[in-house]
């Protein structure tokens, strides 16, 4: 491997054999194979369907892909290959690796299912073929020392891991599809049964991470497809209309539902993702099972299934509040399930008929394809059969049962729903029981666990269970943590999108110990108001920044859609919502990306204040992009390479650079690079920079840096009093805790001073405290009124100088007066201690006090200096030190006169 890449040997690429077909419209020839001839080495022939290595950023780890199509133009100048990508472990986002739930094997690769990546490469970038082996997801990695073989277990679609259909992987001799559309630029999965499947079920197996009902539907849909193709007997004529419904359920209904679910409960998704590997295992099993069943008779299937279906299943609609939220949608797309239901009531064999009619959904065209590829599938099946050694039979069996149970219990659920609603209570009990018994789940046999799980496996629980299995050797803390994190009901959406958790020193995990006692919930209105007014509480929307939000959103969105890069400079005084707005934009974009409205992107954030040195920016960017650790210099080189290389595939990177001015260096190379990368042709980098001063580019940047930053600027104006008032109102959200006038006073005051929303919220928070304390009876606290707000304002805005002078001792007061007297005498604002001391002695005599000694006078002077009522030179100068006042003379007179 290294030999090829390091030595830069000249390779000659040529087509081997004749063109297989010719596309007239695009004027391209399709080929079956080509040859790489290297000087001194024999020719290497690469066929379609073979796995290859492709040049990339990292010379030691070239990209892995599978050739799906080869073509060249008429005159043989350009040689192109359409490939199906695979991801190496190192290419995955670090923060997503935890979704895997286990340590990735170094030679493990993932089938990449992302749609929006360019899958056309120049043949010249192909290095050599590589051996790729598909493993069952439960199989251990072979311990062979063969470094050149890579293993595929799972697929990756930039969000979750899924299971790879073995047919996708192990059909090397699959003929290049003559029927495939010539528009190769449109990325498509390799033509195989799974492809046609995934046409019906758009996200393929990996997208099984959905609320359970869908899961069931999906499984059934896929079950049905295969069953239909194998059996080929259109059993039910009346089911014709239902087929389309099933199809709908598989594609549109599903996505629509997902949309609803995510829109309403962002928390659900996360939990689902956590549980995904667990589930996808079953999904995979189902698929391989399906392949089995093609050969097996239907009778065996039915024989196997009824017992599990007959299990006494617990009542199934025990829903957590979150799940309840998307229940109605479940009912909406429950068309296919109701079909099963009808069927079930008719016949006792629960699955087979249901399968038959639901699976009519497979379109005729697909059926045709299925037939054509029957041969490879069969060959694979033999292998699958072999793999099911007695050792592993236990798991597939149970999971098979599970899938069956999922189906059957869903049916039951529907039945129950129809029959009576009484079970609601019992279901609630069931869940209560269930949570404490989670430990038992581990020890008890899996079947039992599944019994209890039933169809609506509590997502939390399954996530937990998965964790437990995965981190069986983990310390108790992580267990506890996962437990508690699963338990916490309130999950701020901001946290969810917090991207790219950087890697930390090797073995250490950064964490703060878990508190031993639960936090108390706010008890009364004022406490509730205080919690809502805390700056940290993330509001649902950001009022008063709609225009800015729109501008930034459309800027970033357009860049993402166009696959280009760009810079934007955002300025505004502190506390005007710059960072919050950008985060909000990213949250919305992330959501849009989740819904496939825009291509997915990678968001990283750096903050000039959160690093020790401007050059650390490179380190942090690199770490958040790839998880690598490097020295600043090395990181700069790597990033430079990454952004300037011609990259065959990549997501757009959105980078937020907060506190830009701190990245200033004398040569400004950090800033230069940050703004230069987006201009590179293939970088696809969007840089949003935030700083306080509007004219920062003009002030501190040299021309070439300022020029690259461009003119896309935006400035956040300080909030006006109306806006501040609106912000508070929206945070309070109809909670009646403040008097109208009081709020107006706060917002007017803050708007007049700084327009800093943080200040405004802090004052309101303090006012609630004052209100609470001033009330005689703590339980019946009234509204926060003018007086409370006034007090809070005074506390925060009034300077303490005057009080400090009043509270000073007599000699200190005299010394201040002496200083003023001396300044007046000299006509300067500065005098030495000696000069002031003379005045002080005189004043002492006038006041009838005993004159103090020099040491004592110096002590008085130092005390005043420590409070910064006086400004002093370093004290070792003794009587020679110069004294200046830090307060205006009028203030001193005012303070002393009032005595």
């Amino acid at each position, binding site marked *: 491997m290294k030999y090829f890449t390091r030595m830069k040997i000249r390779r000659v690429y040529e087509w081997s054999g004749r063109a297989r077909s010719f596309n007239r419209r695009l004027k391209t020839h399709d080929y079956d194979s080509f040859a790489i001839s290297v000087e001194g080495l024999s020719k290497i022939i690469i066929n379609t369907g073979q796995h290859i290595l492709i040049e990339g950023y990292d010379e030691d780890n070239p990209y892995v892909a599978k050739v799906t199509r080869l073509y060249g133009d008429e005159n043989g100048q350009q040689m192109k290959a359409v490939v199906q990508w695979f991801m190496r472990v190192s290419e995955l986002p670090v923060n997503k690796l935890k979704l895997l739930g286990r340590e990735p094997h170094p030679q493990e690769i993932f089938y990449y299912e992302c749609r929006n990546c360019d899958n056309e490469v120049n043949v010249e970038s192909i290095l050599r073929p590589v051996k790729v082996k598909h493993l069952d997801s439960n199989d251990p990695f072979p311990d062979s020392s063969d470094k050149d073989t890579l293993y595929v277990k799972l697929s990756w679609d930039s969000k979750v891991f899924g299971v790879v259909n073995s047919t996708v992987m192990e059909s090397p001799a699959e003929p290049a599809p003559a029927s495939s559309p010539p528009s190769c630029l449109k990325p498509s999965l390799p033509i195989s049964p799974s492809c046609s499947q995934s046409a019906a079920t758009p996200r393929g197996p990996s997208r099984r991470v959905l609320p359970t009902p869908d899961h069931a539907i999906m499984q059934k849909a896929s079950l049905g497809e295969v069953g239909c193709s194998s059996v080929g007997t259109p059993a039910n004529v009346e089911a014709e209309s239902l087929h389309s419904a099933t199809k709908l359920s598989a594609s549109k209904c599903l996505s629509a539902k997902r949309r609803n679910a995510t829109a309403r409960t962002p928390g659900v998704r996360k939990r689902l993702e956590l549980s995904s590997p667990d589930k996808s295992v079953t999904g995979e099993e189902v698929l391989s099972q399906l392949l089995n069943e093609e050969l097996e008779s239907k009778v065996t299937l039915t024989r196997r299934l009824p017992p599990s279906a007959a299990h006494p299943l617990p009542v199934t609609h025990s829903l957590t509040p979150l799940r309840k939220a998307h229940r109605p949608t479940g009912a909406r797309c429950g068309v296919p399930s109701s079909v099963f239901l009808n069927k079930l009531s008719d016949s006792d064999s629960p699955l087979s008929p249901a399968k038959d009619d639901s699976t009519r959904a497979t379109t005729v065209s697909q059926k045709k394809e299925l037939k054509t590829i029957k041969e490879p599938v069969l060959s694979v099946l033999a292998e699958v059969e072999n793999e099911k050694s007695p050792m592993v039979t236990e798991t597939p069996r149970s999971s098979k049962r599970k899938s069956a149970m999922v189906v059957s219990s869903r049916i039951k659920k529907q039945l129950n729903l129809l029959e009576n609603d009484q079970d609601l209570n019992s279901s609630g009990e069931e869940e209560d029981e269930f949570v404490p018994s989670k430990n038992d789940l581990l020890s008890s046999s899996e079947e039992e666990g599944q019994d209890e799980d039933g169809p609506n496996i509590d997502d939390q629980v399954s996530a937990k269970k998965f964790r437990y299995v995965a981190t069986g050797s983990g310390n108790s803390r992580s267990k506890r943590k996962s437990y508690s994190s699963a338990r*916490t009901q309130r999950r701020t959406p901001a946290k969810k999108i917090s991207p790219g958790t950087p890697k930390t020193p090797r073995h250490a995990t950064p964490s703060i110990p878990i508190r031993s006692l639960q936090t108390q919930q706010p008890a009364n209105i004022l406490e509730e108001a205080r919690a809502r007014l805390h700056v940290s509480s993330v509001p649902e929307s950001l009022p008063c920044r709609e225009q800015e939000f729109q501008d930034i959103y459309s800027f970033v969105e357009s860049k993402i859609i166009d696959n280009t890069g760009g810079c934007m400079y955002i300025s505004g005084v502190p506390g005007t919502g710059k960072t919050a707005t950008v985060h909000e934009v990213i949250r919305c974009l992330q959501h849009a990306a989740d819904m496939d409205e825009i291509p997915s992107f990678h968001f990283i954030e750096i903050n000039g204040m959160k690093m020790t040195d401007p050059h650390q920016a490179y380190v942090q960017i690199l770490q958040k992009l790839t998880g690598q650790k490097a020295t600043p210099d090395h990181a700069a080189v790597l990033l430079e390479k990454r952004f300037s290389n011609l990259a065959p595939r990549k997501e757009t990177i959105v980078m937020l650079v907060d506190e830009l001015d701190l990245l200033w260096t004398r040569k400004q190379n950090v800033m230069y690079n940050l703004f230069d990368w987006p201009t590179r042709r293939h970088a696809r980098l969007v840089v949003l920079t935030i700083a306080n001063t509007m004219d920062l580019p003009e002030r501190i940047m040299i021309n070439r840096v300022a020029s690259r930053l461009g003119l896309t600027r935006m400035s956040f104006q300080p909030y006006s009093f109306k806006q501040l008032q609106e912000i508070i109102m929206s945070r309070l959200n109809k909670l009646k805790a403040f008097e109208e006038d009081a709020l107006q006073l706060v917002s007017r005051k803050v708007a007049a001073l700084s327009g800093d929303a943080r200040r405004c919220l802090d004052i309101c928070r303090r006012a609630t405290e004052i209100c609470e304390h001033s009330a005689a009876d703590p339980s019946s606290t009234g509204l926060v009124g003018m007086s409370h707000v006034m007090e809070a304002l005074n506390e925060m805005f009034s300077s303490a100088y005057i009080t400090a002078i009043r509270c*000073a001792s007599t000699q200190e007061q005299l010394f201040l007066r002496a200083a003023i007297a001396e300044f007046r005498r000299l006509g300067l604002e500065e005098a030495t201690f000696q000069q002031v001391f003379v005045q002080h002695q005189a004043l002492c005599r006038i006041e009838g006090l005993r004159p103090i000694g020099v040491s004592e006078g110096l002590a008085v002077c130092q*005390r005043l200096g420590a409070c910064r009522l006086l400004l002093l030179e370093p004290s070792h100068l*003794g009587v020679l030190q110069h004294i200046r006042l830090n307060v205006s003379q009028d203030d001193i007179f005012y303070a002393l006169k009032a005595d």
Partner: protein
Amino acid sequence: MSKRKARDAHLPIGECITQVQQILRERFCERLLPDRPEGVEAQYKHLLELLRRTAIHGESNSVLIVGPRGAGKTMLLQCVLRDLQKEEKVQKNLLQVHLSGLLQTDDRTALKEITRQLHLENVVGDKVFGSFAENLAFLLEALKKGNRSSSCPVLFVLDEFDLFAHHKNQTLLYNLFDVSQSAQAPIAVVGVTCRLDVLELLEKRVKSRFSHRQIHLLSSLNFTQYLERVWTQLSLPDSFPDKKFAQEWNAGVKTLCEDKSVEEVLQRHFNSSKDFRSLHMLLMLCLSRVSVAKPTIKPADLLEASRMCFADATANMLHGLSILELCLVIAIKHLNDVYEGEPFNLQMVHNEFKKFLHRKSNSMYNFEQPVVMKAFEHLQQLELIRPVDGSSAKVQREYQLMRLTLDHSQIMDALQKYPQCPTDVKQWAMSAFG
């Protein structure tokens, strides 16, 4: 009668004195926190509520305690923490990190100290591994992972807060305040400082993130309260083993406080400074004079202690000078009178001294130039004179410009007390012009 004796076991007088010394010393050295902070009840309540909310509700907060030196800032904080720890709910729920601007002079050491005190996972034994940048990233990551409801609140106490503001970029403060204003692990940042203008030191972004809560400890106590305080500080508690001795002692303290001269002395102290630390110094000096032979504090003790407290250190130093050095100081004083505080050099001083010798035509003080130079250098070592800034070493030592760091009144005082001062020298010092 015998019963009573048995109950109030009379300790031998020596034992009693030792007990008294022990109890009062603990008070004066501020080893013992008072049961309730006096005069700052409102501030106490405010701070207690604030920290309790952090501990119990997981609300992040930041606050500054501002007050002059010796006003009881640390005492207040310690009292609050002590009382917080007594509460069951708080006890196990609060991690504390104590930093001092005088110890953690830059963010690097401060971060290491935080990591060490929090026992984060990159700590092995007592050592914190990783570079500065890694440590910062690690700590921030740790705090970011926490959330309000599940992670343990952390209390950061920053003593000498103003010194942290001088760290580069104020990185530590920015990050602490930023965490306290975002939905991360709940933290409370308590800064303790004596600078009234501390907010002006903060950078605008840091300032915006600070909650602007300030607790001012400015004691507005008057002299009667001050006297009261002296009395409570000196009196023995009821739990003292020997009741009879305690009664006598307390009566003695009462008479002491009512004494006119004592009142005068205390008034003078009160005028000079209201802070209790200097009062404690004074009382400590009195206490050390208590012995078996003299089991009460007499007004004379207080007067003596006060005299010691007010003694002028630099004037005392003049007493140890030789006649030649004293003469040079007087010559400098005359030069200062003539030239109105302009700097001088050795040659000028020597000339002035020679003029005096000429007038007296007395060969007694006729010293060679090197001897005078040596004396002059000695004065410089004692920092009674100090070279003017900027006059570098290029200039010969005789011509190096100097300034006197004594006030004239100090010189005259010292001359009065100087043992066996020659009359002519005294007269020379008194006379208006050399």
